[in-house]
Structures are given as structure tokens and as C-alpha cells.
């Protein structure tokens, strides 16, 4: 078959968007789950839970779509990466089971509420940490032989992956705090502002360490960032990160309602772009490019037709469901 159109750039963009939507949407609701553990009393816990109860299911759907999207658009990457992070994926999935059922079980089962409170909080934290492990392992790259992962299921255990795991805890914590500031008021919001500031400091520290560590770890990443003229062209990324961080810090300390959440999103966008710049055009670092790992044109085209039609529709009705549940949540007026 002659190459008529190259779908790879478009699929890279679509998959990048799907994964980012997941990180953003489930990021804030996993973050809310962790901060839930710090809430002082049952009333504020109910409020916190109610800020995400109607939307968490849709948020988690992006994980399925991101995973299957990777499989469909870049199957070779899927077949290598997923078995390489066997245990982080296992732990993430089991933790997501606990926190997912906690929404209904906690509400229907008042006697065991403490147990499901713990399941919700620890499930959120453990799932986040496991996702951070996956991220760190991915950036570091894999042992590959032929078309298969050639390492062991314990390759994920590395200091760098542990660092990204911890970093993501504070990153999602910051997103969660931003969401709570947006959706609540009074004492719950005040607590979220304090927690947000702590998360912000620690996540910035983590971003700084990762930014120094990755170029030290990989010559190609160092060359990507520091070779001339890249150093000049890419300088806006760290500068913008600093500016957004400064803005977020001030928004957390002021009375504004929405800026902290969008500031946190900004930090995630910039970190995400930073990782993309470091790795492009590799999808399995050091082994396969996006083009080498891509599925056949026929497969990409077949899925693209439907995706381009359905994705805008999905965004529309998902937007509508968020709009239905707009506004602040009060503890006495839950949805249940």
C-alpha cells in the first residue's frame, strides 16, 4: 500500500490529549481522595466526596481510552511498556478498585464507613504513586529484545521511579486542592488552600530534581535541552513554569476561587510538554520511534474516522454533565 497520508502526527496528538485528559481529570479526583484523608470531620468528608461523586466514573474512563488508544495507535509500544510495568499496573488497578467501590459502599454502608474512608483515601494515594512509578519507568526506558520487553517484572524499582511516584502524589494533591477550592467554601476551602501551598512547594521541588536528573541520566535528553539553539528556543518552558508557579502560590493565598485549579493545570501542561520535548520522537525510549511503533495505516484510518466524529460529541455531553453539577457543594445538601 502506498503511503498517502501520515496519520502518526495526528494520533500522537490525539493520544497525547487523551492521556493528558486522564492525568488532569482523574488527577484532581485522586488528589481529592488523598486530601479527603486529612478532613477533620464526617461533614467535611461528605462534602469532599460529593464534589467528585457524579464525575469520577467519567474521569476514569479516560484511563481506559488512553490505554486502549496506545494499543490501537502504537501497539508495539503497548506490548513492550505494559508488561514492563506489570506490578505498578497491578497495584494501580487494585487501588482503583478500592477507591471506586468506596463511593457507593461508603454511602450505602454507614456501619463500615471508616473502612471505606480508608479505602478511598489510601486507594487514591496508592494508585497515584503507582502511576508515578509507571511515568518514571517510562522516562528511563526499557530493556527490549525484538518486539518484546526483555527485562524482569521488577525493573520498575529504581530511585528515579520512586521520585516520580512521590512527585505525582504532590502533583495530584495540588490539582485536588485546586478543585476543592473551586467547589467548596468555608473551612473545607481554607484547609485546601493550606494543603495546596504545601503540595505546590513539594511538587516544584520534585520538578526541579527531575529536570536536573533526566539530562544527567540521558545524553540525548541533555543535548535536546542544552545544545544551541535549543537552549534558547526551549527556555520559555522553565520560565513559564516559574511564572505559573508564582501565580498559583499567590492565588492560593488570596480569595480567588478558580485560579489555583487552573494554575495547577498549567503546571501539569508545562511538565507534560517538558517530558514530550525530552523524549520526542521516541515512544519506547531508546528503542522505537512513534512511526516504528505505529499500527497500520488502515487501522489508524479506521479508528480516526470514528474518533474525529465521536470525540467532540463526548466532550460536549461530558461538559453538559459537569454543567449539571456546577456550583459549590454544601455538606447538608449532598446529591444523595
Amino acid at each position, binding site marked *: 500500500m502506498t503511503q498517502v497520508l501520515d496519520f502518526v502526527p495526528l494520533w500522537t496528538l490525539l493520544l497525547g490529549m487523551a492521556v493528558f485528559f486522564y492525568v488532569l481529570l482523574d488527577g484532581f479526583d485522586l488528589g481529592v481522595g488523598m486530601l479527603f484523608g486529612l478532613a477533620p*470531620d464526617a461533614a467535611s468528608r461528605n462534602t469532599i466526596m460529593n464534589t467528585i461523586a457524579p464525575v469520577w466514573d467519567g474521569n476514569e474512563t479516560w484511563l481506559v481510552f488512553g490505554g486502549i488508544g496506545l494499543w490501537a495507535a502504537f501497539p508495539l509500544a503497548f506490548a513492550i511498556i505494559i508488561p514492563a510495568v506489570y506490578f505498578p499496573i*497491578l497495584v494501580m488497578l487494585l487501588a482503583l478498585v478500592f477507591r471506586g467501590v468506596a463511593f457507593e459502599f461508603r454511602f450505602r454502608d454507614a456501619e463500615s464507613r471508616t473502612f471505606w474512608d480508608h479505602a478511598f483515601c489510601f486507594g487514591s494515594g496508592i494508585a497515584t504513586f503507582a502511576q508515578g512509578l509507571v511515568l518514571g519507568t517510562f522516562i528511563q526506558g526499557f530493556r527490549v529484545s525484538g518486539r518484546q520487553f526483555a527485562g524482569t517484572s521488577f525493573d520498575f524499582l529504581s530511585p528515579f521511579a520512586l521520585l516520580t511516584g512521590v512527585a505525582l502524589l504532590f502533583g495530584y494533591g495540588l490539582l485536588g486542592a485546586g478543585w476543592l477550592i473551586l467547589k467548596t467554601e468555608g473551612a473545607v476551602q481554607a484547609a485546601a488552600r493550606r494543603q495546596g501551598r504545601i503540595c505546590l512547594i513539594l511538587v516544584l521541588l520534585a520538578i526541579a530534581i527531575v529536570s536536573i536528573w533526566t539530562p544527567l541520566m540521558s545524553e540525548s535528553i541533555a543535548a535536546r535541552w542544552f545544545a544551541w539553539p535549543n537552549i534558547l528556543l526551549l527556555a520559555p518552558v522553565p520560565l513559564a513554569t516559574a511564572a505559573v508557579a508564582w501565580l498559583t502560590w499567590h492565588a492560593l493565598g488570596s480569595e480567588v476561587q478558580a485560579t489555583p485549579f487552573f494554575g495547577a493545570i498549567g503546571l501539569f501542561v508545562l511538565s507534560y510538554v517538558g517530558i514530550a520535548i525530552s523524549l520526542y520522537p521516541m515512544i519506547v525510549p531508546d528503542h522505537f520511534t512513534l512511526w516504528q511503533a505505529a499500527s497500520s495505516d488502515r487501522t489508524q484510518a479506521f479508528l480516526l474516522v470514528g474518533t474525529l466524529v465521536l470525540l467532540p460529541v*463526548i466532550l460536549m455531553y461530558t461538559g453538559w454533565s459537569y454543567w449539571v453539577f456546577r456550583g459549590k457543594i454544601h455538606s447538608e445538601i449532598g446529591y444523595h
Partner: protein
Amino acid sequence: MELGPVLLSRLQFAWVIGWHILLPAFTVGIASFIAVLEGLRLFTGREVYGCISTFWIKIFSIAFGMGVVTGIIMPFQIGTNWSRFSDAIANVLSPLFAYEGLTAFFLEAAFLGVLLFGRKLVPPWAYFISALMVAIGTLFSSFWILAANSWMQTPAGYEIVNGQFFAKDWFEVIFNPSFPYRFAHVVVGFFVTASFVVLGVGAYLVRREPSSEEGRTMLSMTLWLLTVLVPLQMVIGDQHGLNTRDHQPAKLAAIEARWDTQRRVPLTLFAIPSDKAESNSFAIEVPWLGSLILTHDLDGEVKGLKDFPADQRPPVAIPFFAFRIMVGCGVLMLGLVLLGGWLRWRGRLYDMPLFLRLAEFAAPIGFVAVIAGWCVTEVGRQPWTVYGLLRTAQSVSPSLTSYDVAISLAGYMIVYLLIYPWGLLLMLRIVRKGPAPSAEQDSKIEGGRPQAPVLAGALSLAEGETR
């Protein structure tokens, strides 16, 4: 058989999908039931429908939440444990799974939030539309997942280049030979399963309080539906069997424990088949009936397992017994439906305690049939993941050791054995409360220390260290 990564991965896949399938088996039917009830409520204005709907939405919310989280596990299984399979068939099957996400999961998820929490927030018609969208989402999901499953059973529309499958014709890939039959058989099976649950709950409510309008409505509606669906399912199942004979003869031979190719074969009601001896013992057979059922011809020929090399045969015992359990459930279902129809004709549907009791006992019968049918079709596909083309043993991730998979399998077992009984108990508790029209009261009981953070222990520890 050695307990290596292949067998353990198979056990793990069977474990996670076997538990997962119970939830769609229930929620696909219940979602449609809720949509019908919301429609009736909107167009007739009768409050009883809203009352029944609210009651089932509570139960549905638990089952659906469990279905979502156990469902997220499924696509990752294909990557973690079956990476060679995922690499080989990605170009053909992955878009089908992706379309499931695009057409079904987002639809279900977005409108589920409104269905569970939005009755007071949106106008009645929008609430009905939301219920409808959730129901349609569950059917779209069934469509794509069964298309993918059917392609693994009866692959079509593909070509193989360097051990990789590529699609040649998407229509043939999706509407492969076994798909229409499997789709009809499974979806009707899911509707029957949910109907028996509703029938059982309705019977319980009527037995507890004979005047219960909600219980009577549930009983009557589902009995009408089952009167149509149970016989229909038997016809579809028969057609599905003919399709299996044409496309997967080894599977059919295993189902019937038939070793030698013959004409005028008997129907084996019971036997103890042995893969090693290549024969059955203790067989109870009805002459000629096998050919009549399997080929619709008294003189029809049925292939035996000895026609296939030993390393291309499925194990016989599981498909053989599972099939008999499934058909046995079908016969029991038909008996109950006929009894119910007769009682309705005599005007005694709601006041014969024996029938109400039987209906209660029959509530889980659909699940038994679904699991049995799933065993027949999936074990019958062995030793292949893609029938006749890709072996299960060549599908597993090469990096996995037995220990890796043993650890993950243990993890899934522990978590599922905690989650499922717990969820079931909560659903039974809702049933026991009944569809009382009063607003649900959140229990006043608070576990543990309600006025302390969940992380209180860890917090005080952390503070103690910093001070």
C-alpha cells in the same frame, strides 16, 4: 499440566473476567429496565414506575460501580499478561476495543452521574434521556466486545504478514461468522438474567406484603418479558450451535464429548469423558437425537474429536459439563415461566406461595447459565486465542515468571473476594428495605471516630516526629 506463567495467566484472566461478566450480565438488562420504567413514568405519569425505578437505580449504582472498576482491569490484562497476543492482533482488534470506549464508556459514565444524582437537577425528559443513554451505552459496549470476542472464535477479513494480523475488510472483521449469533445469544441471555433477578425480587416483595404494587408490577412485567425471551433464547442457542458446528467443529465435538465422526449420533445426556482414553464412560444416550439436534437431520454427520490432532483439541470435560449446566438452567427457566403463565391465566399469580418461593430461588439462575455458557465458548476455543491461528501458549508475555503471575493472581483473588460479597450484601440490604416511597434516610450511625481525620494516626505520628 505445569503451573507456569501461561496456565497462571489463564487462571488470572478467567478469574477477573469471570467475576466481571456477572456485572454486565445484570446491568445491561437493568439499565434497559430502568429506561423503560422512566419512559413509562414520563408518559403515563404513574408514580409506581418512578418508585420501582428509584429502587433499582440504587441497586444498579452499586453493581455498575463494581462493573466499572473491574472492567478497567480487563484491557490492561491484555497488555500485562498477553503482550504477544496484543502485539499480533493489535491491528485488527484494538480499534474495536477503542470504539467500545468511544461509543459506550463515555456515554454511560457521563449520563450515569445524572441518573444517580440528578433527578432533582434536570427536567424529567432529560432524566429519561439520561436513563436511555446509559442503557444504549451498555448495548454498544456489548456489541463491540462481542465482535472482538467473536473474531477470536471465527476470524475473518484479515491477512497475516510476518506473524502479524492485518485487517483487509472491517465489515468482515466486525460481522465475522459467529458474531450475529453470539451477540443475540449473549444480549438475550443478559436480559433473561436481569429479568430473573427482578422476578425474584418482585416475588419476595409480594410474598412479604401481598398488596405491594411495586412487587406485583415487577413480577408481572418481567414474567411477560421472560415468556417471550426464554423460548426465543432457546431458538437462538440452537442456531448458535449450528454456527459452531460449521465454524468450530472441534468445539462442538468437545461439547458433545463425541470422539468418532458418525452419522445418526445419539444425544449424550451424561457421561464421564476422558481426554487420555479418548472415550466416555457411564454414558447415558438417546439414540438419533444428537444428529437431529446438532444437524436438524436424523441422518446428519457429526465430527468427532479424533478427526483433530491431539494438540488441537480443547479439553473435553469443561465444555461438556458446562454446556449441560447451561441447558439445564434453560429448561428450569422455561418450566418456571410456563408455571407463571398458567397461574396468571388462572388469576393466581400473586397468591401462590410455592411459585413466589420458586421465583425467589430462581433469581440467580441466569448468572449460573451465563458463567456456564462462557466456560463452554472460551474453554471450547482452546488451545487457541485466535481460533486455529494463534496458540494460547504463544500469546503470553515472555517476561513473566510463575512467581510474578502467582503474586498478581493472589492480589486479584483477595480483592475480589472482599469486594463481591460486600457488594452483594449491600444490594440485598436495599432489597430488604424495599421500594418505600419515603426519601432515603442517610443512616445516623457513624463508624469509628467521625470527628477525626481518616489519617489521624499517621498525622499524629508525623507531627510527633517533626516536633
